[in-house]
């Protein structure tokens, strides 16, 4: 295992060395004006140069360094709760540098608040009942890499997902204290990250959720992740957490909430961002903006987190597998695996979730009939009866919502 991790790191270093030497070291000189100093310094290692993401393991796969986007390899998501340093990073802009939790405030405004209000982080903690919830966050573009024709954007494979225990307060408690008008339609967030261009008038991202979603018991404003401060890259010191929706709805570095009397029209709410065709289209179709609808629910999905793909075992050995499954629905009711490319499916052991939107753990023990190359596939079915396709689900221009079953490669030798 240690060897494997080491190999992985070596390979990562090798692959990124050429680009990183230049980009990591060159970035502060060439593009420095828009970078926070937290993204640098660069860590130097014996084997080469690696741009270090603050608070994050160097085992994450770096997809983009400006803005920072990095995903978690499947086998590193094996823990019940994803450790803070392994939780994926999806930034749209540049995080604030050195935000201070003691000075942090959250204000409420918009057409549909009865009056504007501002709370300090301390007030939020003291005035409302704190809750701890285990919630899975998944980027809407997780799995984009597999779409054909390819979709633009960060080419996530399977690792733009993680599940953590969040400490915070229920939005509905705070919104009740703020006081909403009857025409409240949408909750919009604004964060302290800045636009890539450095233009202070532009928001890098300002999205949100329908007011009904904001009123769910599991919709929270959080200041802790797994019992510690939220990592800077994941929104320190304050963020929204909405389970079952694209993670882009869960605003980071949260400084303002606007309650709108219409669907929010902030950055990356319109056009084609975080939208799919309202009606299904053929692969490669051009879809007008007016024909694109906002993604709300994330589909049922699962991930095999043990063993890491590429395992070789002996014919007389049985193979334990395990992983997680999640959905926007009430729960996962079944996880199955196949070792014959989907001809036969067998059920896995499945554990219940602590609360809604927590991922559920599954496991199985597999016997292989003979030696050879196998793929282990996993597919989950949720309480609504929805399941995962084994080929790609509906093509969409920006490559969202790929919940095709996860596959790992196994060799059985005599």
């Amino acid at each position, binding site marked *: 295992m240690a060897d494997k991790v080491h190999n992985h790191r070596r390979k990562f270093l090798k692959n990124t060395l050429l680009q990183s030497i230049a980009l990591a070291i060159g970035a502060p000189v060439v593009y420095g004006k828009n970078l926070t100093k937290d993204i640098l310094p660069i860590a130097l290692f014996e084997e080469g140069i690696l741009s270090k993401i603050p608070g994050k393991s160097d085992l994450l796969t770096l997809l983009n360094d400006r803005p920072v986007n990095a995903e978690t390899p499947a086998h590193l998501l094996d823990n019940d709760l994803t450790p803070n340093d392994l939780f994926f990073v999806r930034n749209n802009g540049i995080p604030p540098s050195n935000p201070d939790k003691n000075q942090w405030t959250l204000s409420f405004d918009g057409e549909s608040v009865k009056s504007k209000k501002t709370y300090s982080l301390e007030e939020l903690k003291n005035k409302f009942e704190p809750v701890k919830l285990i919630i899975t966050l998944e980027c809407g573009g997780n799995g984009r890499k597999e779409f054909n024709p*390819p979709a633009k954007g960060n080419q996530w494979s399977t690792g733009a997902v993680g599940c953590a225990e969040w400490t915070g307060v229920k939005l509905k408690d705070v919104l009740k204290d703020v006081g909403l008008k009857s025409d409240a339609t949408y909750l919009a967030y604004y964060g302290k990250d800045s636009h890539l261009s450095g233009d202070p008038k532009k928001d890098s991202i300002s999205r949100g959720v329908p007011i009904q979603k904001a009123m769910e018991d599991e919709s929270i404003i959080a200041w802790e992740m797994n019992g510690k401060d939220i990592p800077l890259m994941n929104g320190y010191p304050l963020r929204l957490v909405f389970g079952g929706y694209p993670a882009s709805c869960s605003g980071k570095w949260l400084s303002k909430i606007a309650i709108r009397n219409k669907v929010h029209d902030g950055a990356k709410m319109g056009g084609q961002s975080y939208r799919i065709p309202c009606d299904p289209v053929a692969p490669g179709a051009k879809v007008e903006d007016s024909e694109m609808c906002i993604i709300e629910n994330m589909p049922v999905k699962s991930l095999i987190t043990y063993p890491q793909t590429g395992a070789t075992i002996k014919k007389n050995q049985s193979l334990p597998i395990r992983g997680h499954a999640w959905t926007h629905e009430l729960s996962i009711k079944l996880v199955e695996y196949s070792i014959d490319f989907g001809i036969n499916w067998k059920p896995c052991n499945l554990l219940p979730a602590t609360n809604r939107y927590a991922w559920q753990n599954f496991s199985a023990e597999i016997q292989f009939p003979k030696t050879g190359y196998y793929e282990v596939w996993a597919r989950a079915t949720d309480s609504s009866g929805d399941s995962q396709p084994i080929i790609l689900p509906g093509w969409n221009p920006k490559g969202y919502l790929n919940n095709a079953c996860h596959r790992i490669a196994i060799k059985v030798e005599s």
Partner: protein
Amino acid sequence: MQENNNWNTDLLWSTLLSMISAIVLLSITVIVYFGFRNDIDKFFNRPKYDKLELAKRTTERASIQIDEWDRVEKGIHVKTGMVYDKNFKFIKANCLSCHSSKMITQNRATRQGWHQMIRWMQKTQGLHDLGDSEVNILDYLSTHYAPKDTGRRPNLDIDAIEWYVLDLN
């Protein structure tokens, strides 16, 4: 005859002296080696640089590369990891001052697709009018970062898999 004899004696003496010197030198080497074996081993097996030194040198190398903005190796522009050709300068000037080259290199699109992305950046991200350069930029992107047909679902990337023996004990 006398001279010849002298010459022979000289030869004999000088050979003898050389041999004695060689033996003395060898003995000294052997004595020194056995006496200071550990130190010698350490000397030859020492790490070439300690970590700090290595980091310093790496930084120096990197700073040299900052000066060598346009170094190209095997057709790849080292600093950005991008394919280098006559149109690369248009990418450098118009794209990379705003975003990472990874934003381009991890994506694939047709000429039309790249064109749409440029329009999207102009509409929403504050990208300037590219003027005549747009043709060169689209030539570059559609040549080097064009899509491959992967069907309805690609095979697992067998070449990328690092096979390992799973320890099940």
